């Protein structure tokens, strides 16, 4: 029994430590993960080796996410780049114990309502992958090159706000990173401060 408690403690400590110390940076290899998508299929990062991959941390209940979906901004980005062969993965790391948690069925309905069409949409209920990547806001964006190296980490654009009006004047940093990468140029702004709601991790 005490052994069990000790193991539990050790595991939760490790989780805490990893949460505190994680965070990946541009130039580093993107950590591999394996998560189940809302259609029940297993999605691995390595399945997309050879393609550019976008990771988008998502929480439908967050005003910052709503800003980019209700304006159609995020859907437009998804459409534009998936057509160019980029794999776009939405990730929701919300804990099932949090009121913002949406199970696979509800997630499907939300994506449908918003006409969002990512390549896949995965759930990360224990927050392991989110913490591994140091994802702290929704949205928090990551761009990975075909070799599996991170080329962009940060906010979706350079205008932190919840106002849709700011989208027009903001510089979309994900689009910039993808455009530069796809045309063989180095990414001018490889990292930026993410903005948004906190990821609703399990404590």
């Amino acid at each position, binding site marked *: 029994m005490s052994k069990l408690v000790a193991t539990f403690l050790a595991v939760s400590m490790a989780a805490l430590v990893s949460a505190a110390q994680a965070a990946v940076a541009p130039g580093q290899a993107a950590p591999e993960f394996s998560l189940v998508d809302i259609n029940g299929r297993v999605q691995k990062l390595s399945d997309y080796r050879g393609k550019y991959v976008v990771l988008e941390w998502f929480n439908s209940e967050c005003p910052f996410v709503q800003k980019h979906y209700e304006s159609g901004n995020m859907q437009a980005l998804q459409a534009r780049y998936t057509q160019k062969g980029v794999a776009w993965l939405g990730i929701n790391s919300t804990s099932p114990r949090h009121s913002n948690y949406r199970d696979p069925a509800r997630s499907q309905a939300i994506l449908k309502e918003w006409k969002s069409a990512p390549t896949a949409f995965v759930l990360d209920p224990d927050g392991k992958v989110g913490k591994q990547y140091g994802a702290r806001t929704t949205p928090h964006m990551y761009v990975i090159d075909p070799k599996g190296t991170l080329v962009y980490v940060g906010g979706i654009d350079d205008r932190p706000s919840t106002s849709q009006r700011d989208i027009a004047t903001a510089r979309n940093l994900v689009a910039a990173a993808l455009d530069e990468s796809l045309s063989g140029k180095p990414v001018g702004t490889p990292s930026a401060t993410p*903005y948004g709601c906190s990821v609703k991790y399990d404590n």
Partner: protein
Amino acid sequence: MRWLAICLILLITALTSMAPVSATPVQRPHIEAELIPEKSSLRPGAPLTVALRLKMENRWHTYWKNPGDSGLPTRISWTLPQGFSAGPVQWPAPRRINVGPLTNFGYEGGIFLLTDIQVPAGLAAGTAVPITAKADWLVCEEICIPGDATFSFMLPVSNEPAAADPKWAKAIERTRQQLPRPLEGWNLDAYLRGDDLVLRLSSGRARVVRIHNLTLFPDQDGWIENASPQRMIRTTGGYELRVASAPAIRSKSGPLTGLIVAEPGLAQGVAAAVVEVPVESASALADEILEQPALSPFADVGLLAALGLAFLGGVILNLMPCVFPVVSIKVLSFVEQARGNPARLRAHGLAFAAGVLVSFWVVAGMLLALRAQGEALGWGYQLQSPSVVAALALLFFVLALNLSGLFEVGTSLQSLAAKLRLRNDYADSALSGLLATLVATPCTAPFMGAALGFALTQPASEAMLVFSALALGMSSPYLLLCFWPALIRRIPRPGRWMETLKQVLAFPLFLTVVWLAWVLGKQAGVDAVARLLAGLTLIAAALWMIGRWGASTETGKRAATVVALALAVAGCVFAWPGNKTADAVAEEVTGPWKRWSPDALASARAEGRAVFVDFTAAWCVTCQVNKRLVLESDALHARFKERNVVRLRADWTNQDAQITAALRDLGRIGVPVYAVYAAGSKGAPILLPELLTQERVLRAIDVAAPPS
């Protein structure tokens, strides 16, 4: 009538449409917001402060300019007439707000965000000026709700002094007083050590201000891992703050800007300070990293920890050689008391504890009073006075003679009423407590140094608390025995053995007298010792007379008492050494050990040599034990020589202002202190524990003077 209805409708419509544009408080989900001009009118050319008051619901928060891991800072956009301009938001110091594994920087409860508006000088009095501002915020608990409000008001222009806002002016002024100020009285540098961003605060003052909960809030994201704990470490000249750095820190150019916040404050009335500091890479400071005083076991002591340490130190004091004899006396009296009823026993225990407590308070009170007068004194100072040493020697000598059975105290009182004797017993217990304290002072036991150092740099109330904890720790074993007499029953029944034990216990007391005589010799020379010994002999004669004839016939008793008194007074007068101290150096600074002085230390370090400083005193038992068993050992002698370490000895047997100041710089107020300065460095020394081991010193030498 109809006309009136139309009017009313129009009026209501007008009011409703104006509602969002107002200067009265607006209610939004989980937050109340209001824009408040500090003054009711504008003066041409005089700036006006306008406050955005945000009142969050319980557990909800808004954000600082760097919101941390998530969130958005509150924003104010101004619409002002021609010639007016709004300054930046004056952010109060934020708090760390943890949200699961993430951390935000923001505000809970209520805040005032102040903005100064520049008012043009050419404004005509009698006119009115519209001021409009739109505030946007994000208010979060577990979830976040963005909100905004537009405020507008007209302010009249007047050359008269304007009236302050009756309701909020005080709160606005308080906010202004608490705004972060430039850092003063501290030197700050910052560098990267491994993955840690390290801030070093070194005090420009002789006494380092005590602070807790030092926290860094960078102005921008990307410097630190917001959620990782910020660890403050007490260093010899100040503090060090270690924070896990963010990966992006390597790509930062320019200095780190932000706030540092500490409790109770970084200076009088300054809780938060604005800092701007270049972050150096670790390699530039590689040699200084070596000497981080991480080896000090009492690096950072908070009040609670200090109280705990003081208590523990008090318990340990009972085992110190200079206290143990008194303990022996007390153990004997406990055995005697155990025959009485438990209530009496408890009362004795409490009386003893009270005696200890009061005497610690007296010592602390004196120390604090002297400190207030700026006297360069420290713990153990009682024994820096030869007369105190001589008086103690007399006292112990009398006690030892009593234990030996030369004379009995109280035999003549046996005829007195039981009640009176009882009261005397309690007074006796209290006196034992006082005595125990007096003799404990030279034994700066392990754990005690830091607690005392802490106490003496704290406000008087906290210092008294620490001394109280020390006193309670010291009396705790007795209290335990008195309250659980079952423990005493394990002590053998009284009998002849007690008399034997009592007489045996006299010998440690005689040894204490020898030690005190030796200390006196170190301080005041051999003449003083001779006088002391002669005085002791006179007193022994006096006591012998009392023992021999004190219980005999009435006339014999009276004569004996008179002669004995005369002898005792003569003995005391004879033994009195005055406060003249010997010119001779009390501690040997011969052979490889050189006398410490600030210059000697500076020149040795200027040569790039490692230095070992032994802060010691003849009356310090711990110092002597360390010196004999460790510092003078052959193994250490060889190692010191091999590594070319300069050995300096600072002798504090007599008062020495320079040494007292040096001890204080090291954050200590008593001896022993062992400071090891690394070769070729300019930084603070490594401080070794008060109880040395050979192994520990060898390790320190390896760090300070690595084998070449």
